[in-house]
């Protein structure tokens, strides 16, 4: 059976976001990190103020977009050794139930991140040098974790409709 159209559209969007935002963050961390170390710190002896802050915030963005993307391309490790010893029906329905539990858990995490984000500025949760509030980054992480919750729920739907979960294929490279 061909892929469900909404899964295909969602995968396409997720892949473009991962490529665009992930690529931008990786490029920033590589180029800015190197420039700050080699040029500003080692040659000019004047490291960029708040460079570490910017790197940390880039990392948060990268991790945030990586979590849902990883959920669609099989990045999150599962132990498959016992599956061959289960009946296909049990394996399918236990996985269905656990995907829903996982989705619920991630939704709870997203809600808690929103709550923590609301208090971040009040509690002085900022970067160390530039004093940038972590609030929007908590919200971004919450949004991405919520998307991962949706992905887990969509996995459960796929299991019911197709008996298996299709994933984004990145080829065999590294």
């Amino acid at each position, binding site marked *: 059976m061909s892929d469900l159209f909404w899964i295909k559209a969602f995968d396409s969007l997720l892949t473009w976001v991962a490529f665009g935002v*992930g690529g931008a963050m990786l490029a920033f961390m*590589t180029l800015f990190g190197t420039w700050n170390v080699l040029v500003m710190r080692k040659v000019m002896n004047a490291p960029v103020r708040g460079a570490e802050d910017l790197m940390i915030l880039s*990392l*948060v963005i990268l*991790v945030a977009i990586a979590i849902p993307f990883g959920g669609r391309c099989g990045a*999150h490790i599962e132990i498959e050794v016992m599956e061959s010893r289960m009946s296909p029906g049990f394996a399918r329905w236990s996985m269905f139930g656990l995907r829903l539990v*996982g989705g619920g858990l991630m939704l709870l995490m997203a809600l*808690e991140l929103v709550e923590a984000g609301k208090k971040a500025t009040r509690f002085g949760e900022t970067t160390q040098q530039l004093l940038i509030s972590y609030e929007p980054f908590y919200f971004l992480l919450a949004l991405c974790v919520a998307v991962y919750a949706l992905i887990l729920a969509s996995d459960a739907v796929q299991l019911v409709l197709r008996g298996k979960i299709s994933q984004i294929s990145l080829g065999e490279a590294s």
Partner: protein
Amino acid sequence: MISMTALGVLGLLALFLLLALRFPVALAMILVGVVGTVVATANRFLLLGMSSDQAWSRGLKTAMSNLSGETFEAASNYNLLVIPMFVLMGNLAGVSGMSADLFTAAYRWMGHMRGGLASATIAACAGFAALSGSSLAAAITMGRVALPEMKKFNYADSLATGSVAAGGTLGFLIPPSGGMIIYAVLTEQSIGRLFMAGVIPGLLMTLLFIAAIYLTVLRRPQAGPPGQRASWPERRSATLAALPFVAVVGLTIGGMYTGFFTPVEASSVGAFLTLVVALWRRSLTLSALREVVLQTVKASATVFLIIIGAFIFIPFMSITELPGQLVSLMTSLPIGDYGILLIIILIYMFLGMFLEGIAMLVLTIPVVLPIIAALDFGFDPSMADMKMIWFGIVVVIVLEMGMISPPVGLNVFVVKSIAPGVPMGQIFRGIWPFWFAMAFMLLLLALFPQIAIFLPQTMVG
């Protein structure tokens, strides 16, 4: 009310049940960590005489606070920047052709000897390991280059596939290593010192693997017939082509050792230099760039979600005091420090047959680490950090053994995907000489801990 120890044991059982049902490892740790923290914290307050409502409310509050706090803590951990950067470096090295150059250089120097192609594969894997922290990446990248060559020269399938699978495991030991980064974060050790601790054992392991190949072809000469002898100009040109690799590794690893870079800085510079090599060689097409970025994001997802899981699970284990109980139990056994170490290694080997390396690391460290901390293994108390670094290398090698152990040796499956015509049984048969080489390495590390701690002790900064 339930005893804390029983709660800890129940938590571990629930965790393994969820894993057996194919629940993602990270989510299983988060679920058990959250539910366990609620119950354990409530239990503790109930024992203090607090009312049931208040105790459960406190438990819930603690668990929810951990859920958001630890997640953000992991995602914003500056030291963890090395993960995406070193993964990016490895992926860029893969597309830049540096891996093929490494193999060609090793091949030109060693290919004419019996088993020389397999030895060249090991040497090239060791080189690639210095650019990539992933054993799977090393096995895939080198397998694609080396397996066709070995087939061409009629190598035994078992030796050819075994050397690729085993050589790939060097990616986990030779810095930068994903496993070491996670161990360092979970045990609060210096990433740079752990990296340095992996250098000498990594080189020794490479030599031991080559010795294993030598012994194999000594017993069965037809398993590894000699290839063509390369001329001196061919050797020189191949060596020159591999020079960018030497420059990148020399600057990143050397920079860390001399204190010129911190590990985070070295990871950025290493990724940058590999990017320059890839651009200079015009190998970074748009499709290659897309592949590199997406693979890096995917690998980051794997590691970060599992670290988030560990950050939420570890406080639960601490509340139950189960690790402390295990320390008392183990240290009361009349078998000495090394007897306990042997038991731990055997447990790791057993778990390695079923669990993926990184998953096993995050699942076991909260329990095993207090036991190691309580033993001295001949280390002076002032060298407690060095003891942890030494144990980190021991653990990484045992995890490597798990990667090539049946029935779920991940590297073996990766090699099987590149060599679909070779039966699994044959690949596993080819693994044994390398598995024993790893066991011998563990013995060397137990007898001479200096192998691991010499470089971290002498590094600058």
